[in-house]
């Protein structure tokens, strides 16, 4: 397993805040909205520099999404920010009709996604958002893995013409992707060359997969590791190329096993190259209150779980 240099530790939401500021500097059409979560979404730097381009909607997410659609006239590029739960499930119909079906250039910035929101518990820990968003025709779904990649993804989302769901999180996680990376929407990042198993991971699970790969290397197993920051459109070529080499795959995501990355990968494989697959994901349940690490352990999303899943899937190879 390749050694990844960790340059620090930060939350991916701060990557969004930094990316939003830079996108705002790059393009005066970038505007932002927030439903009373400016601090949590790290939007203050953007607001300080561009106060006239920020709209505080109060705790009124439906209005925020509708306003975002209306704001696009004249070329404005709205980023609507709130927690992933309120950015998807609460406003699904608004996103469906006013953004996706209407083809509006709105970016939905969703923080605190998944179990790693931690102590607030299941009311706020959405594990269904990737599924909800990927089912909308025309919606791009991005789930970057660290601060640098989230910043790059935010800047790329601003340049892309069309609706984007950008998912990120609350906890501090290792920064291991380059600060100057090119972020290409829909293009997987191949992190490690290996031959025994393919791991396709997204978001916070990419670092867990690196940890798992390092453990597996000690046992003589080599992991072909793909960081799939874009879940839709899915980079099927990268997955198929890797799986042709390894013959087994483990998908890893901080999301319900139903409707997430794993099912998207399974569909690609079923159509092209049926392959044994194991799923690291939450097993169709809600979360609960605890520290992020405790929850990742309890719900089967730790690097140890990935190691076990790799061994299992290798044993299933024909």
């Amino acid at each position: 397993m390749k050694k990844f240099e960790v340059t620090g530790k930060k939350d991916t939401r701060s990557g969004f805040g930094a990316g939003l500021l830079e996108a705002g500097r790059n393009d005066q059409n970038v505007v932002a909205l927030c439903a009373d979560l400016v601090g949590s979404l790290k939007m203050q730097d953007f607001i300080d520099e561009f106060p006239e381009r920020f709209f505080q909607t109060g705790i009124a997410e439906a209005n925020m999404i509708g306003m975002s659609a209306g704001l696009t006239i004249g070329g404005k590029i709205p980023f609507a920010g709130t927690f992933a739960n309120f950015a998807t499930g609460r406003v699904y119909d608004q996103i469906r009709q006013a953004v996706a079906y209407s083809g509006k250039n709105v970016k939905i910035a969703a923080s605190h996604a998944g179990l790693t929101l931690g102590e607030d518990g299941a009311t706020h820990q959405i594990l269904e958002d990737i599924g909800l968003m990927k089912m909308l025709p025309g919606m791009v779904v991005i789930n970057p893995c660290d601060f640098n990649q989230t910043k790059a993804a935010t800047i790329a989302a601003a340049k892309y013409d069309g609706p984007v769901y950008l998912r990120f999180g609350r906890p501090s996680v290792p920064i291991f992707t380059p600060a100057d990376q090119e972020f290409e929407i829909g293009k997987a990042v191949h992190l490690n060359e290996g031959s025994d198993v393919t791991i396709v991971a997204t978001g916070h699970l990419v670092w867990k997969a690196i940890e798992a790969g390092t453990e597996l290397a000690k046992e003589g197993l080599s992991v072909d590791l793909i960081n799939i920051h874009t879940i839709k459109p899915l980079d099927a070529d990268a997955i198929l190329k890797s799986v042709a080499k390894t013959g087994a795959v483990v998908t890893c995501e901080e999301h319900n096993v139903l409707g997430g990355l794993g099912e998207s990968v399974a569909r690609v494989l079923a159509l092209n190259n049926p392959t044994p697959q194991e799923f690291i994901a939450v097993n169709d349940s809600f979360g609960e209150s605890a520290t992020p690490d405790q929850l990742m352990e309890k719900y089967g999303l730790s690097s140890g779980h990935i190691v076990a899943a790799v061994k299992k899937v290798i044993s299933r190879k024909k």
Partner: protein
Amino acid sequence: MADIQKLQDITSQVRRDIVRMVNAVSSGHPGGSLGCAELIVTLYNEVMVHNKKEFNKNGTNEDMFFLSQGHISPVWYSVLAHAGYFPVSELSTFRKLNSRLQGHPTTHDGLPGIRIASGSLGQGLSVAVGAAQAKKLNKDDKTIYCLMGDGEQQEGQVWEALMYAPHNKIDNLIAIVDYNNAQIDGSVDEVLSLGNLKAKYEAFGWLVLEMNGNDIADVLKVLAEAKAKLGNGIPVLILMTTIMGNGVDFMMGTNGWHGKAPSDEQMAEALSQNPETLGDY
């Protein structure tokens, strides 16, 4: 000075189109469409500054109209067609396979004149407020119009937008509520009363005007008054009283024609009450 007779003539033709479109596919919403005919005819033919020849979704330096209760699409389609946005003949495709005239309006198929999909209720005012904010940012001094239904006022999102606009001094927006007191399951008063709607809007910080939506002279007068009130840091709302089914006697004064198509005989009767003025499609 507006030519009221001309507007009435267009309205008569629009009513014919509505009834014929809905009859042709045995579905659609004639009641609210007929009730709002005078308003939408007047907006597009007398009041709004708009570019019907080269439709642009951005609407830069144009007044813009957003229809929140998308189910009254027949009236909007007819007015847009007669205004020159697309061929009048296309009205015959309403609700049919591969048509740009979907049951509820959409941008999806590129129909000129439509800037947002609507139909799922309660969303239009939010979109209009966003567009009004964009116009301010873009230093565009034109006006945003948004029409909502009265039953639609039962949606919570409407009140989110109603709260946002005065707080943020959205004063380039005229919201209009079609107050016909009828919705699918009965009168609005029976289904879920809106109480003193005027007082509620005023309590939210809106300037509220009242208008008889089926009297073109009053529509012209109150729209002009509303326009004159813009730019003062306060959003303007018009409570527009209409009769659902207006202009077709057997459809008037009941909610029965909210979403029901007339039979061939009923259509003939409706057409006999509304002379052909611009030519049927």
